[in-house]
């Protein structure tokens, strides 16, 4: 396949296939570095904090949070939506970029998808823990029971159950199907018998047969085709949690696409945050190059701008609607007691990503890293603003209240960070962080070495 010379190489360092295998598997081999131990200790500590907060929440009740009669959701659902959003990048990269034939996805899709799965797990924790009666949480499943009572299919929360479950499972098999050939590689490279047996089991008996590859490609493609609308549907349904309601600031029709775009926005930011560190730590700079990072920053500009337009649209429409409740809700966002949250959101989500229009900033890793963290913060505040500032002052001023989080809520959030990083660090030790086979498949067309020698 011909690749135009104007395109920058995706893989640097003049790698051959064997080198690719070696490089990518390097982080799995040998003893972990001291940084890995430090990292796992810190995230393990965060996880313990989360465990404590979970205990407090279950043992003492939701009363240990800062919620009140007016504000029924705050950090819990903010965190939920935030993590779900982050969980969008992986599948977006694997599915939609695959459909759009973006080759740069091959270096990042594996880790991004792993991140997705972990993020979904973190996200899923919050709807569970936020229940007043978590032990009866199984009521949300439509199982046959003696009362012949089913669930309420009108409820967006119920849709969430289906959407999240489906999304997690489909992402999982999508990820695993992509992982099978690489597990085969790990298996074949394993020196140790136990390791060989384990990876042999996990590789499902992968042989690399042309027929298998052919079907594998078809499966990947169709899974991508299925996952693409699935990705959209998940955050769409999450947005329905708010948009179906009658609360000003929640009920607005733009939410579905705006949430999806916000999710991709935050997801890519998190991928950037993670990969900028990971590529350095694992010596993968030649695989995850500045081209990859630039491409991701471009997606961030795109989605960030969509989000920005949505903010403006919402604000304008609130005025245009002539509905006093809508108007108040938005004025309250911008100038009310939680204005600081709103302006953090605006700054982080609308202004800072626009810096990516400048190539200098796009290619400056430190700048990208900082901005990616800004976006993470901004997107957290977006959900906080939507949830808390809409709820705390809705229709009847008599019920207006304020919200302050408690240590338990902070603990739960930090705890999911602990879970996230712990699992991610386990992941980099256990599976190849880059899709080896996929990188090899684009190596010829997209590496710097081959570029000059390749002839039509």
């Amino acid at each position, binding site marked *: 396949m011909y690749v135009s010379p104007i395109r920058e190489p995706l893989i640097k360092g003049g790698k051959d296939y064997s080198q690719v295998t070696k490089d990518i598997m390097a982080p799995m081999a040998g003893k972990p570095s001291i940084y890995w131990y430090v990292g796992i200790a810190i995230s393990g500590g965060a996880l313990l904090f989360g465990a404590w907060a979970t205990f407090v929440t279950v043992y003492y009740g939701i009363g240990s949070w800062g919620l009140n009669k007016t504000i029924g959701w705050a950090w819990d659902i903010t965190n939920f939506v935030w993590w779900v959003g982050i969980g969008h990048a992986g599948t977006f990269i694997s599915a939609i970029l695959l459909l759009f034939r973006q080759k740069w996805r091959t270096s990042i899709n594996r880790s991004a998808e792993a991140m997705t799965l972990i993020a979904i797990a973190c996200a899923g924790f919050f709807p569970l823990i936020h229940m007043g009666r978590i032990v009866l949480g199984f009521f949300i499943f439509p199982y046959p029971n003696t009362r012949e009572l089913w669930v309420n299919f009108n409820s967006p929360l119920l849709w969430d159950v289906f959407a999240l479950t489906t999304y997690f499972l489909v992402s999982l*098999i999508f990820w695993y199907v992509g992982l099978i050939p690489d597990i085969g590689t790990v298996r*074949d*490279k394993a020196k140790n018998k136990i390791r060989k047996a384990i990876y042999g089991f996990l590789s499902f*008996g992968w*042989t690399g*047969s042309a027929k298998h590859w052919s079907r594998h490609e078809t499966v990947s493609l169709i*899974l991508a085709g299925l996952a693409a609308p699935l990705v959209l549907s998940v955050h769409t349904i999450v947005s329905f949690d708010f948009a179906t309601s009658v609360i000003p600031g929640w009920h607005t029709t733009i939410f579905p696409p705006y949430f999806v775009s916000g999710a991709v926005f935050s997801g890519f930011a998190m991928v950037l945050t993670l990969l900028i560190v990971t590529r350095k730590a694992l010596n993968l700079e030649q695989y995850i190059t500045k081209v990859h990072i630039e491409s991701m920053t471009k997606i961030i500009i795109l989605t960030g701008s969509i989000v920005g337009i949505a903010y403006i649209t919402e604000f304008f429409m609130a005025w245009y609607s002539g509905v006093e409740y809508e108007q108040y809700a938005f004025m309250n966002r911008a100038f009310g007691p939680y204005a600081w949250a709103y302006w953090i959101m605006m700054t982080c989500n609308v202004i800072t990503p626009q810096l990516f229009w400048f190539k200098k900033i796009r290619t400056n890793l430190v700048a990208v890293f900082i901005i990616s963290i800004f976006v993470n913060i901004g997107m957290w505040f977006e959900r906080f603003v939507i949830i808390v500032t809409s709820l705390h002052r809705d229709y009847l001023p008599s019920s207006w209240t304020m919200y302050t989080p408690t240590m338990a809520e902070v603990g739960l959030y930090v705890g999911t960070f602990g879970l996230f990083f712990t699992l991610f660090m386990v992941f980099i030790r256990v599976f190849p962080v880059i899709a080896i086979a996929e990188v*090899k498949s684009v190596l*010829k067309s997209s590496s710097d070495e081959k570029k000059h020698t390749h002839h039509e």
Partner: protein
Amino acid sequence: MNKYLTAYYLDEEDLLKGLKKIMSKGVEVSDVLTPFPVHGLDKVLGLRRSRLSVVAFAGGAIGATLGFLFQAWVFTRAYPINFGGKPYFAVPSFMPVTFELAVLFAAFSMVFAFLISNNLGPGSKNIIHDEQITDDRFLLVVKMDEENEERIKVVENILSDAGAQGITLKA
């Protein structure tokens, strides 16, 4: 008892060229094992397009139908409940679950079909001809009749003519 003659290339373009050569000489290549999907290989080997998409469609259709009918049954037949004055047959409300189940069924039916058709799965014991094929070797496998040693020789020659390396005969 069959024997396998294997040989490998280190570059997919060489493989494709060699393969064309080998096959033109009437050698039936039973399989090609590669570290990544090589474009054009299925054409050379004459592989049919996979029909997994049909499975996916069927799975999706079943998932969607089941999902929709189940919700409709619950709301209109099994236990009709007035929720906020919404109609019992609340089609817009049924869409998300219908969609999710369609995707879930489609994805899972297809992946299972994929695993089954490839004889892949936890603990599956497929023959691994060469551990390097998951690294940088493009291995071709020719199934040989054990008795017919002459033929083996002939094929070996054809293979080496086509630039294949490491020609070995395996049980």
